[in-house]
């Protein structure tokens, strides 16, 4: 088998020398390349560097510590390395319990054989590897949540209580994590929005996947009202039906849109003035010039002086209108809206 060709490093924590020799013999039978280290007390074990071992074999009763206290201590020390418990009949029940605490396996000393020990070690190492990978991936996902630059939170779908919030949410809203965990999602909204939240959740109940119900109003701890674009997903959180929510603050974006819309109104007004107000005296001017051009100097119907006066009036009117437009244009100042 492959593992027989690789170097196996084992820490045996055992105070009974007879037992240790027996275990060593079994191990040597099964592993060609082997390094065994033995410590006889918990205290001594804790001085070792766990990272170099492939597996830790632990006797349940040591002179300085035993039982639950010992297992807890060694498991903490072992970190991501498998711990196999070795015990006599008398401690069998506790050995079973230790599995629940996180040990990889338990073996009864009286039934110990080389092949059983080898199998247990091989299984334990593999199982621990898979377990570690799973834990790593969970950790990565937790980090994705906690280190996301966008505020995110999880809340209970039934009680509406916060179950978790990420760092971005804490810094954005100003509530501490403890404060959040004592609040419901209604507590950081204006009263007017509370009904809408419940309705939105109810309406999207049967929708699969990510939901984007739009923009909602939230309140920061300092009372500031903000617009947030919400997207959320259903999530099973520690056995509770929950919603994972991403809240993107679009307050500034909305202020800009509002400012741009106001500017558009002003621009439309200017366009209207151009087409109606400017054009009226201009069209009159053109008409008058046209009339003068087509009439004889001595036409009794047309008083040239009167025409000239109208032309002058029209040019003055035009001048005034253009000044008005300039004033209006100067009022449009995008920078002042920032």
């Amino acid at each position: 088998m492959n593992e027989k060709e690789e170097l196996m490093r084992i820490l045996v924590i055992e105070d009974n020398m007879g037992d240790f020799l027996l275990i060593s013999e079994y191990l040597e039978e099964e592993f060609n390349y082997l390094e065994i280290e033995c410590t006889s007390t918990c205290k001594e074990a804790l001085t070792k560097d766990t990272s170099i071992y492939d597996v830790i074999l632990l006797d349940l009763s040591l002179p300085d510590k035993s039982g639950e206290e010992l297992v807890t201590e060694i498991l903490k020390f072992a970190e991501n390395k498998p711990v196999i418990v070795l015990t006599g009949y008398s401690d069998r029940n506790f050995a079973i319990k230790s599995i629940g605490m996180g040990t990889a396996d338990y073996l009864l000393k009286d039934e110990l054989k080389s092949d059983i020990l080898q199998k247990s070690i091989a299984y334990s190492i593999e199982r621990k590897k898979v377990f570690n990978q799973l834990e790593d991936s969970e950790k990565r996902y937790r980090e994705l949540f906690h280190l996301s630059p966008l505020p995110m939170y999880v809340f209970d779908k039934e009680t509406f209580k916060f179950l978790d919030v990420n760092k971005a949410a804490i810094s954005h809203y100003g509530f501490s994590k403890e404060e959040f965990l004592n609040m419901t999602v209604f507590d950081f909204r204006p009263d007017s929005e509370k009904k809408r939240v419940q309705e939105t959740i109810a309406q999207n109940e049967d929708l699969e996947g990510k939901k984007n119900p739009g923009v909602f109003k939230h309140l920061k701890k300092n009372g500031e009202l903000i617009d947030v674009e919400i997207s959320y997903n259903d999530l099973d959180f520690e056995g509770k039906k929950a919603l994972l929510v991403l809240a993107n603050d679009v307050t500034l974006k909305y202020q800009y849109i509002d400012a741009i819309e106001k500017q558009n109104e002003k621009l439309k007004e200017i366009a209207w003035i151009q087409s109606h107000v400017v054009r009226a005296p201009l069209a009159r001017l053109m008409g008058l010039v046209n009339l003068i051009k087509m009439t004889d100097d001595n036409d009794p119907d047309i008083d040239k002086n009167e025409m000239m006066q109208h032309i002058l009036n029209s040019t003055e009117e035009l001048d005034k209108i253009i000044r008005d437009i300039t004033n209006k244009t100067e009022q449009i100042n995008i920078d002042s809206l920032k």
Partner: protein
Amino acid sequence: MKYDILIVDDEDIIIKLVRHLLVKSGLHQDPKGFLSGQDALSFLSDQKDSKEPQIILLDINMPEFDGWDFLETIPTMDLKFPIYVVIITSSINKSDRLKASQYDLVAGYIEKPVSMKNMEEIKALDRLASLFDV
């Protein structure tokens, strides 16, 4: 056929100009000018017994009672004679032209400045053709 032409414009000088063009072009020898839509409407309501068609050259942008108000009021007056409106406006907005085309009363649409060329356009309007036949 006999017909009247009314010029409705809040600017006196425009009325003068249009009247001059109408006379010169031979469209009418004595067109009547009105400085407001209300004045023109009260003239029309005085013509109840008349059967003569009325061509109204109507400005749109007038203070208080504008050309659109005028167009809305005419159908409510129960006039016995036919009315043809030709819009004469300084507006060059497409939306105004479109709006005008939605009134049955409107037979033509002219953008200022008004010139002799526009008089020829009025003569060529389909809906008015029967009036100008000699």
